[in-house]
C-alpha cells in the first residue's frame, strides 16, 4: 500500500512537472521519514552496546513482506514500516545513523537461528513474544500490540467472526501464528497456507478462499487498497505482542533496549514512528503497550 502510494506520488510529481500545476490533487509531496533522538553516551566496556557503537554498524533482522510493518519497497530497494522505524530508534540510541543499519530479511523460521549464530544482532520482525520463544531468545518490549482479525470479500455477509468459519477456507502465511490459531482453535475451518499475504489476498478476490486472517494492522492496509472488494470484519480474537529479539543470555542489551523503548514512548518518538507507517491507514495511534521487564 505504502509502495503504491509512493509510486503514485512519484507519478504525480512527474505529471505535475509536465502539466504545469494542473489539478493533481491526490499526489501529496513525499514526506520524509522522521529522525530520532540520538545519544552520545558512552557504554560500559565489553558490553554489546559498546561493541556495536564502536563497530559503527548493526545487523537487524526484519520482515520484507508485511505492508506497514516491514516491507521492502521495490522502488527504493529499502525496507519500510513500523518495525524499521523502531530499528532506527534503537540504532539512534546506540549512536548509529539509519545508513549504518544493515537490514536483513528474517523470515519466521530464521529468527531464532539468526540470533543464536550471530547473523543478526537484533530481530525486529513482527516477532510475537511467547513463552516457548523466551526459552531460546531474550525479548525486549513489547513495542506494539495487535490482534488477529478476518478479512473477507465485500459482498460476503456469511462471515462476521471466527465462529462463522466452519467449512470455510481461511488463508494465512505458511508457518505463521495466525494460521496456527485457526488450525488449533477453529478446527472446522480449512486452513490454507500461502507464502505471502499478497497471494492470500489474491486467492480471496478470485474466490478460491473465503477469508484471509492475520494481525489487524496488516489486513487494514490491504482492505484500504481495495475498499470496493474487501472488508475487515469482527473484533480481534487474539493478542499478539511484538517484541525485539536479542541473544538469550545478553540481559544487559535487553535492559538497554527496554530503556530505549520506554524513552521513545515517553518523548513521542514512538508515536512519530507509528504515524509515519501504520498510521497512514487512517487509524489513530493506539495506547503504547506496557513493557514487560522480566
Amino acid at each position, binding site marked *: 500500500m505504502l509502495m503504491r502510494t509512493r509510486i503514485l506520488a512519484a507519478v504525480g510529481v512527474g505529471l505535475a512537472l509536465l502539466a504545469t500545476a494542473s489539478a493533481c490533487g491526490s499526489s501529496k509531496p513525499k514526506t520524509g521519514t522522521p529522525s530520532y533522538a540520538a545519544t552520545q553516551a558512552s557504554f560500559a566496556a565489553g558490553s554489546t552496546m559498546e561493541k556495536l557503537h564502536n563497530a559503527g554498524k548493526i545487523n537487524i533482522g526484519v520482515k520484507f513482506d508485511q505492508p506497514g510493518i516491514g516491507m521492502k519497497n521495490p522502488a527504493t530497494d529499502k525496507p519500510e514500516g513500523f518495525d524499521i522505524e523502531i530499528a532506527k530508534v534503537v540504532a539512534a540510541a546506540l549512536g548509529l545513523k539509519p545508513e549504518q543499519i544493515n537490514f536483513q530479511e528474517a523470515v519466521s523460521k530464521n529468527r531464532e537461528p539468526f540470533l543464536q549464530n550471530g547473523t543478526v544482532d537484533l530481530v525486529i520482525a513482527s516477532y510475537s513474544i511467547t513463552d*516457548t520463544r523466551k526459552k531460546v*531468545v531474550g525479548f525486549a518490549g513489547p513495542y506494539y500490540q495487535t490482534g488477529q482479525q478476518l478479512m473477507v470479500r465485500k459482498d460476503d455477509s456469511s462471515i462476521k467472526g471466527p465462529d462463522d468459519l466452519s467449512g470455510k477456507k481461511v488463508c494465512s502465511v505458511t*508457518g505463521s501464528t495466525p494460521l*496456527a490459531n485457526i488450525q488449533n482453535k477453529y478446527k472446522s475451518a480449512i486452513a490454507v497456507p500461502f507464502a505471502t499475504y499478497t497471494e492470500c489476498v489474491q486467492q480471496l478476490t478470485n474466490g478460491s478462499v473465503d477469508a484471509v486472517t492475520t494481525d489487524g494492522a496488516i489486513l487494514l492496509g490491504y482492505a484500504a487498497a481495495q475498499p470496493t472488494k474487501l472488508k475487515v470484519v469482527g473484533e480481534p480474537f487474539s493478542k499478539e505482542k511484538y517484541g525485539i529479539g536479542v541473544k538469550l543470555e545478553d540481559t544487559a542489551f535487553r535492559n538497554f533496549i527496554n530503556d530505549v523503548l520506554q524513552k521513545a514512548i515517553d518523548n513521542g518518538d514512538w508515536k512519530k514512528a507509528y504515524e509515519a507507517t501504520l498510521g497512514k491507514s487512517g487509524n489513530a495511534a493506539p495506547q503504547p503497550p506496557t513493557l514487560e521487564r522480566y
Partner: protein
Amino acid sequence: MQVLIDNWGSILRAFLETLELAGLSAVVCLIVGSLLAVMRVSPIPPLRLFGSGYVTIVRNTPLVLVFILVVHGLPELGLKGSFFTRAVIALSVYTAAFVCEVLRSGMLTIPAGQAEAARALGMTFGQNLRLVIMPQAVRAVLPPLTSVMIALLKNTAIAEAFGVAEATGKMDDLVRDHADAILPIFIAFAAGYMIITLGLSRIVAWYERRAAAS
C-alpha cells in the same frame, strides 16, 4: 524430541499428503512426458515443433513461476480446482519436460538400424515405438528417470506456499511453535524425505535386477 513424539500422527498425515501429491503428479507427468517424447521423435514436423517448444519453455522456467502461473492464473480463466489439483497440475507440467528429455535420450541410444529394420518388416511408427524402441529405451533410462522422480518428490515442498498442507508445511508449523527444538525437527523431516526417496530407489534397483535377469 518430545515435539516429534507428540506430533507423530500429524507428521505422518503430512507426509502422506506429500506422497499423494508426488504419486499423482508422477503418473500424470509420466504420461504427458511420454507423449511429448513421442512427439519429438515423430515424423510429423508440427508435433516435433510443439514437443521441442514445450521442453524449451517449461524446462527453462523456475518451478515457483510455474506454480504462480497455475495457482494464480487458472482462476483468472475461470478454472477453480482445489489447491491440491492445482499443485498436481503445476508439478506435472514442469516435470513432464524432464521426463520427455530423459525418454528421448533413451530412444536415441537405440541404433537407427533397428528402427529401419522394423520399418522394412512393415511395422508402423506406433508398432515400432511400442514393440522395438520403447522397451529398450525405458530400461536404459531407468536410473535418470528415478532421479527425475526423486526431484519431483522433493519439489512437492514448494506446494506448502501454495495452499497445500504437506510435509514441509507441517515442519514450518512445528518450527514456529517449538523454537527450542528446531534442529531435531529439521533432521526428522529430512529423514522423512530420505526414507521415501531411498524406498523409491530400492524398488527401482529391484526392478532393474529382475529386468536384467530375464
